[in-house]
């Protein structure tokens, strides 16, 4: 009888746990954010256009990595690389102004390489960020039914303990009263 009752309790709580997990599962995002449009945001020569377009892509890639919950330290390193690209493009503009076109082209080529490298690293960070955010949410929502189950068990056993103590107290007082009545009769 006692075993049957316990089985019933565990079975019911298990059903509730599964129901809660199913209810909360739509809150967990399953898709990674979609990449934004490419950019070409300043007018200049071909080299500058390519460099700026690649730089724009790199900025958007880093923003997406940030939005997916990537580590701030890792993002900081990518931002440093982006500022390096900003410096290279600025230097190339100055060199063109001075007529040093070949040196400017070298700077622009390097800036494109760094931008592409940043895009690759940002994609990796975005994947890692999405995964860690996903697991973090799963863990957080998964802990809810566990905590609820613990709370339910604690309340159940506390209630039983209190009721047993109350019954024992009443029985003791009744026994005392019975003993007193018998002594009076003697």
């Amino acid at each position, binding site marked *: 009888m006692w075993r049957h009752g316990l089985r019933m309790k565990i079975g019911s709580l298990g059903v509730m746990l599964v129901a809660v997990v199913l*209810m909360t599962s739509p809150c967990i995002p399953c898709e990674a954010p979609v990449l934004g449009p490419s950019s070409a945001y300043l007018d200049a020569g071909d080299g500058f256009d390519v460099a700026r377009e690649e730089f724009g892509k790199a900025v958007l890639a880093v923003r997406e990595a940030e939005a997916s919950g990537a580590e701030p330290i890792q993002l900081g390193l990518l931002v440093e690389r982006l500022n390096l690209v900003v410096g290279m493009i600025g230097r190339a503009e100055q060199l063109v102004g001075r007529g040093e076109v070949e040196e400017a082209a070298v700077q622009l080529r390097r800036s494109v390489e760094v931008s592409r490298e940043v895009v690759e690293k940002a994609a990796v960070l975005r994947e890692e960020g999405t995964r860690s955010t996903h697991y973090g949410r799963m863990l*957080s929502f998964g802990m809810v039914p566990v905590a609820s189950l613990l709370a339910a068990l604690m309340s159940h056993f506390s209630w039983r303990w209190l009721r047993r103590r109350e019954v024992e107290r009443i029985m003791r007082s009744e026994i005392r009263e019975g003993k007193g009545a018998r002594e009076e009769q003697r």
Partner: protein
Amino acid sequence: MRISEDLARAATVFICVTVVLSTLTYVALTPRPREEFFQIYVLGETRMAERYYPGNNPNIPAGQAVKWHVGLTNFMGSIQYVAIRAKLGNSTIKAPSDVDHIPSPAPMLMDFRRVLMNNETWEFPFVWMIKEARTNGDVVRIAVLDLNGVEIRNGEVSALKGRNFRIIFELWTLDSESGNEVFGWRAGAERRVAWLQVWFNATSPRPT
């Protein structure tokens, strides 16, 4: 009978605690909407909002260096590519429009670009000097300006008796939707702009 009562009580506690904890978890994990903005400022040579001119005299003669500190803080909640465009204007050139989000048509002296992380402040020195000012009757034209060691030739901006020139600082950002550099920034459905200006007089020009 007692078992089912106990079970009902435990189930009620379970459901109530689940609802409360699920709500709390959702609230804790959902990022709160907050205002997205930039803070732009210009400080004097002491890095305070004072002493914008040498000797607190806004009449700047040619050859006199003026040192400011320009700063920008990113409160957009994300990484931003920003450009601060410094322009030279006078009293008749249109200022940037806060309503229509149109930049000033004043000629650009230099732009300063950087990628900023969220909550990052970027501050840089802005040291300028009138190298050459030309007069034509009462009209004074700043022909050559030295800005952070770079010589900038400018033949467009002039002012009567050299009064009421101004340096305008405009904030431009990379718009992620269009992929273009735009004046101001997009905060949700709204467009916002930020700009500053500091007035000065170009006095004592060298006669030409």
